[in-house]
């Protein structure tokens, strides 16, 4: 449904071209949560920006439902890591969530209903009239997620969304993402450098190498749904998958370290 074929992205630099992503190909199935995990500096964000239509790949392409992505598609929503700058500080939480819905065909009542439902979903019904900077970091990221939920995208792209929230909030937000996927059937493309998080959330995990990054391996995560922070993570299969992915990433880091030595 979302197909990435032989995607390559090269940035011009003073020393010539820097290839962040090379020969990247994979397919994300409808309704699945597909994680991209890799060491930092693996060009994950570059890849994601190309998929989201924010940047154009140097070669290769991204296809969504048979059409090439040549700009941000209307059916996509993004949750960035930098929630503070992604939200509008001068608009209330309610307006932040509502703004993407202000388009033809959405009545005020319909928008209002979707904003209320989305904020209730993330547990922020009381914050509708607050400004983002009056909320904690975790709450701000929940607003960003509520905005994505209310938008009802077919594909939700999340770029290390929980990298700057505390551990407890992170666990809560992970379960929120699983719930959204369960209830709405949204396809989710999730970028992270956290192995536990990728295994816990995903149907499949793609391990990417350092730049120029390519896919080293795609791992099927056959853990039962619904997942639970304690029960799922206690399963031997979780431990095995986690060790497998972790080992793969460590080898990549190790290899490049040796290569540079």
């Amino acid at each position, binding site marked *: 449904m979302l197909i990435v074929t032989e995607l390559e992205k090269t940035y011009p630099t003073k020393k010539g071209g820097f290839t962040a992503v090379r020969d990247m190909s994979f397919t994300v199935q409808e309704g699945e949560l597909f994680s991209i995990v890799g060491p930092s500096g693996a060009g994950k964000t570059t890849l994601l920006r190309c998929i*989201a239509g924010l940047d154009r790949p140097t070669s290769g392409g991204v296809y969504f439902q048979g059409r090439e992505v040549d*700009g941000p598609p209307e059916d996509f929503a*993004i949750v*960035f890591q930098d929630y503070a*700058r*992604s939200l*509008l500080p001068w608009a209330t939480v309610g307006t932040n969530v509502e*703004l*993407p819905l202000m*388009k033809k065909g959405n009545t005020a009542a319909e928008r209002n209903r979707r904003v209320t439902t989305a904020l209730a979903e993330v547990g922020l019904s009381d914050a509708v009239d607050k400004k983002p900077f009056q909320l904690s970091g975790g709450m701000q990221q929940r607003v960003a997620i509520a905005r994505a939920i209310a938008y009802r995208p077919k594909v939700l792209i999340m770029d290390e969304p929980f990298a700057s929230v505390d551990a407890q909030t992170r666990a809560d937000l992970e379960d929120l993402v699983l719930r959204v996927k369960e209830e709405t059937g949204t396809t989710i493309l999730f970028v992270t450098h956290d192995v536990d998080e990728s295994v816990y959330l995903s149907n499949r995990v793609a391990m990417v190498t350092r730049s120029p990054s390519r896919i080293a391996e795609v791992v099927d995560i056959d853990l039962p749904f619904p997942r639970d922070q304690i029960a799922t993570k206690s399963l031997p299969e979780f431990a095995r998958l986690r060790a497998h992915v972790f080992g793969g990433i460590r080898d990549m880091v190790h290899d490049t370290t040796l290569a540079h030595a």
Partner: protein
Amino acid sequence: MTAVQSLPVARRRTSRPRVARVARPVVAVAVLIGAQEALTRTDVLPAGYFPPASEIVRTFVGELGDDSLGPALMSTVRTWLLALLVSVGLGTAVGVLLGLVRPLEAFLRPVIEFMRPVPSVALIPLVVLTIGTGSGAALFLACFAAFWQVLVPVITGVRSAPAIALDTARSYSLSTWQRIRWIQLPSMLPHLATATRLAASTTLILIVTAEIIIQMPGIGHEITMSRSAGDPARMYAYIALSGAAGIVLNVLVRRIEKRLNASHGLEGSR
């Protein structure tokens, strides 16, 4: 008894910071005025050029009942506010346009960079020749000076929107108008507020200058009239009046600025 005694102490303690905040500048001003009074009364400073502060105040109070102060103040303030309105309005409109349309700004940049540093005062002869010596001349000079001060920060402000906010707008397919209305204009507002405060000073300076040099009615004209009439006390009274007018507008604009920054969640919104 002890409770009654301790009460005023406690109250004084809690109110001390505020008292100190008000008292310090008041004391500073009082000391300066007192020093000026002492130096001029003892003829250390020649009283012919520097009349004692008390005399300036007496002259000022006397002027309050006179027919020239009201119209002079009105004339200056009217031109001043009009100049501020025009320069901020025009500067904002053009600045937003140039901020949004980069090719246009690149095209006009040499012109802006050439015109911006031209001192408005240098245009006075030209203005007298073309516009004449009415209040229109002062208006033009003030607007010319303040326009650039507004234009440049507004261009910067429109472009100061965070890249992530703009990416978010694109990924949610917001319309161009939504992007401008909700991201770029609000990003620009704090820059505009600061520019307006600067423009308020600039326009006042230029208008008083024009009144002194071109001899058009207003505070500046009264200042130069007093000088030629050999009445330094009256001259200083009008100088003080122009300073007071500047302070009042500055305080008003600063208040708007603070409120704006607070609503943007910006630091320094004390």
